[in-house]
């Protein structure tokens, strides 16, 4: 990595928002998804490409106290199929499916009866899976719900992409050994200023840039 991308990453880390804010966005998405479908729970799983595992990044409803951060292999199970094939599916009454139970319910004792799952697709990549667990019983699934699930997954994928970019910037900043921390701090501070203070801050930075660029004697 050259110095310039590191500096850009430092500026990005200072202004694009914290991991916490993107986590809040993911939580809001799963909360709305659960509410819209009248479901018991909803979650976002992200792929960790290094370990080939799926990780619970956002959970609302049943299991929200225990599942966050939980991992399981990405190659198998229903979520694994959805991720690998980039294809959404809905399955009802999976109570006794041992593979499904090991995916979600091992630690919580919560065994869902139904699952809607859609891949989180961004550009060419499959980033993870959006799941909605246990829609109301005795309501037949409809294609309209599938469309809605797809739209939520699309929105979630954009949020996840932002989160991953923020993490990448933060990681580059950390790897710089703290040298670039001041650049990130400057970007954060100037970004937060308003009106005349902001204009004054930007003027100061422009003057500083000009001074640093001028030939040294």
């Amino acid at each position, binding site marked *: 990595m050259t110095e310039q991308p590191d500096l850009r990453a430092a500026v990005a880390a200072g202004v694009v928002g914290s991991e916490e804010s993107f986590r809040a966005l993911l939580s809001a998405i799963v909360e709305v998804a659960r509410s819209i479908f009248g479901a018991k729970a909803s979650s976002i799983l992200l792929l960790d490409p290094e370990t080939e595992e799926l990780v619970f990044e956002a959970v609302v409803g049943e299991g929200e106290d225990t599942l966050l951060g939980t991992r399981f292999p990405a190659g198998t199970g229903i979520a694994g*199929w959805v991720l*690998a094939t980039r294809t959404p599916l809905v399955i009802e009454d999976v109570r006794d499916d041992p593979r499904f139970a090991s995916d979600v319910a091992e630690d919580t004792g919560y065994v869902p009866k139904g699952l809607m799952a859609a891949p989180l697709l961004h550009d060419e990549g499959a980033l993870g899976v959006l799941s909605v667990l246990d829609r109301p019983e005795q309501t037949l699934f409809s294609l309209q719900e599938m469309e809605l699930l797809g739209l939520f997954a699309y929105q979630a994928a954009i949020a996840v992409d932002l989160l991953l970019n923020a993490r990448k910037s933060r990681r580059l900043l950390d790897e710089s050994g703290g040298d670039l921390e001041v650049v990130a701090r400057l970007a954060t501070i100037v970004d937060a200023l308003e009106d005349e203070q902001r204009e004054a801050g930007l003027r100061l930075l422009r003057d500083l840039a000009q001074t640093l660029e001028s030939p040294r004697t």
Partner: protein
Amino acid sequence: MQDVAGHSGDAGKAALPAWSLPKDSVDRIALPAHWPERVTREWALGGSTGDGVRVCILDSGVEASHPMVGELESAVVISVGEDDQIVADEDTEGDVSGHGTACAGIVRRLAPDARISSVRVLGSSFTGSGAVLLGGLRYAIEQGFDVINMSLSTTKKPFASVLHELADTAYFNRTVLVASAHNMPVESYPWRFSSVISVGSHEEPDPLDFFYNPSPPVEFFGRGVNVQVPWVGGRVVSVSGNSFATPHLTSICALIMAKHRELTPFQLKSVLYLTATNVGGGK
């Protein structure tokens, strides 16, 4: 591609002209069977059980011990070996998610005498799954299956050209590739290629109802909502999605091909159009 110089020879062999049709060869390409003036569903598949048609489920494996699936003709698992060689080993693991079992169950129910094989392209690892998918499809085409059910897609653009080539190879080798359409706003393959039969979902309960879409790229709609299917662990579940509409069209293709063995993929697609529920010969 056939030999371009083969303008003469045994008409029974694959020696027909590839690029042109000389006058003395016209008689040799007479169709072996005449189509009725009005192609109906009864003519196309009435009484058929899919007898002898070889169907490949390219998916997560198949649990053959499930009573709704029954005996498989073969089952292999695809992996990438040394030097990126594609390896097909006998699959003793069965189904790693349940989806392949569901697809096989739909085919068994609608075309009970079809010969079903499983080519597993999922589960060995997530990384490299694209290469395994391509390798599995190539393997299935080389095996000369009559129909390949592909309830999956890839969003990786570098794979698109290879998939396109494979889809065309299947088409010219008389292997029908039936692929799930994507219902999300992304580019994915191979369902968008015109040499495959692409399938979306409808909500009607009749498993043999299928609709022609006059506004492609999705060409047909099959039953894909609230479908009872076998699942791993001997379970029966209700499922929805284009990936379950696909084996419905696969089954319909098998029924037609069992009755009309001479059909090319182009002709089969024509029969599907003429016998679709929303077209003249649908009922």
